[in-house]
């Protein structure tokens, strides 16, 4: 009787091991790499105000991975977007934007990045790769704001952590965009293999005026939660609605990928 029981237990262990080998690690396939259809997004969007002078979010870092051959990238980021100015609607993308975030590109470690698409006929799109990230669990700050201290068409951005051991600054020039939308969330490109743990986006706020000589990001918090789009993958949702009183300011939005 005891011998039979031991044998059954052995069989169960062997079957379980076989199943684990057969099932995992899974490489999940998705279709986010077609040049004509574009990428997949797990984002939320705000467009209630005629102009957003800037955008800010805190992203709690997670591990992003896009192993060699994944055919694209995966990122967590924030976008400040102009969908209506004449020079932007005709720049090829149909929009201008400034974006900043954390990206894992096919076969490479994750890095901080920023990019812009300007209302221009040349050098429209520009992607800046900044350097390795702080690592999972660190709360990074991403601030983008129109800069009225100099000439027109300047947008400043900062990527930094609490101790300022990470502090990157970027300047988008010749970019007289008038942003009427803010997006936060995850973008996925490619066909298979990417992954991302849960990333939290908190302190979702927007600049109510351009940066002036007093050097202050004057802001209101986001209070709407109706703009969620989740391609599944990436998976995105509100963990804490921004309609709730703070803390956290502007709710807590969360993304992950790809299973």
């Amino acid at each position, binding site marked *: 009787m005891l011998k039979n029981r031991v044998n059954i237990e052995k069989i169960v262990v062997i079957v379980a091991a076989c199943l684990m080998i057969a099932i995992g690690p899974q490489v999940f396939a998705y279709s986010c*790499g*077609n*040049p004509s259809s*574009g*990428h997949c997004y797990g*984002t939320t969007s705000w467009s209630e105000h005629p102009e957003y002078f800037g955008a*800010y979010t805190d992203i709690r870092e997670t591990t992003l991975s896009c192993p060699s051959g994944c055919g694209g*990238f995966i990122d967590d980021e924030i*976008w400040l*977007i102009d969908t209506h100015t004449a020079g932007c609607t005709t*720049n*090829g*993308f*149909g*929009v201008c*934007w400034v974006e900043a975030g954390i990206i894992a*590109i*096919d076969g*490479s*470690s994750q*890095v901080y990045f920023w*990019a812009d698409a300007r209302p*221009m*006929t*040349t*050098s*429209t*799109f*520009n*992607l*800046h*790769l*900044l*350097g390795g990230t702080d690592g999972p669990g660190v709360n990074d700050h991403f*601030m983008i704001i129109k800069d009225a201290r100099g000439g027109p068409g300047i947008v*400043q951005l*900062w990527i*930094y952590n609490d101790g*300022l051991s*990470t*502090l*990157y*600054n*970027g300047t988008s*020039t*010749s970019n007289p965009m008038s942003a009427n939308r803010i*997006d936060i969330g995850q973008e996925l*490109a490619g066909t298979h293999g990417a992954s991302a743990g849960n990333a939290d986006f908190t302190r979702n706020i927007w600049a109510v005026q351009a*940066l002036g000589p007093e*050097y*202050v*990001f*004057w*802001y*209101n*918090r986001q209070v709407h939660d109706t703009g969620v*789009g989740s391609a599944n993958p990436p998976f995105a949702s509100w963990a804490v609605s921004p309609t709730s*009183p*703070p803390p956290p*300011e502007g709710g807590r939005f969360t993304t992950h990928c790809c299973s």
Partner: protein
Amino acid sequence: MKRTALMLIVLLGSFGLLSGCDGCHRSDDNGRSGNGTQKKMALSPPKGTPKRPQGMTALTVHGSATEPFTKEDVVEYFKTHNLPKNATTTSDFHVDTLEFITSKEVTARLQGVTTGLADEERLAFVTLSGTFVFTGPAQSKPATFKRAYAVFVASNGNLLLLGSLDSQRPIG
């Protein structure tokens, strides 16, 4: 006894009202004015010297200081590495030119695009031809370009900057 109980109720009620009012006050401070619109709040952008952009590991430096890598090195790199965020494949484009120029010259060629490096820093400016597709935020159109660029740091071969050169729309 009844009086003591009544006093206790009044006291507890007062605490309740006070804590309620405190909540209202903080809510006001956190953005709501009397008419329901938010008051603007202040956040200071970071101060201090920003870090130097590092870029992403790419080419191996093996040549002289004046030519730390060659056009052939760049060609080999782009046989196995796509231009980040480009949706076409490595067989859809080729390397046209490689020049070592200063950061200031890169900015001039790219209509004011900043590199984040000192004006005099040497960079490798690479032009590419073929078909490139870049994509923006959700609901934007993927845009196709015939020319693109990549900028590598001359001192370590890291990929620092890339983007489109021409435009989809007809010029002129």
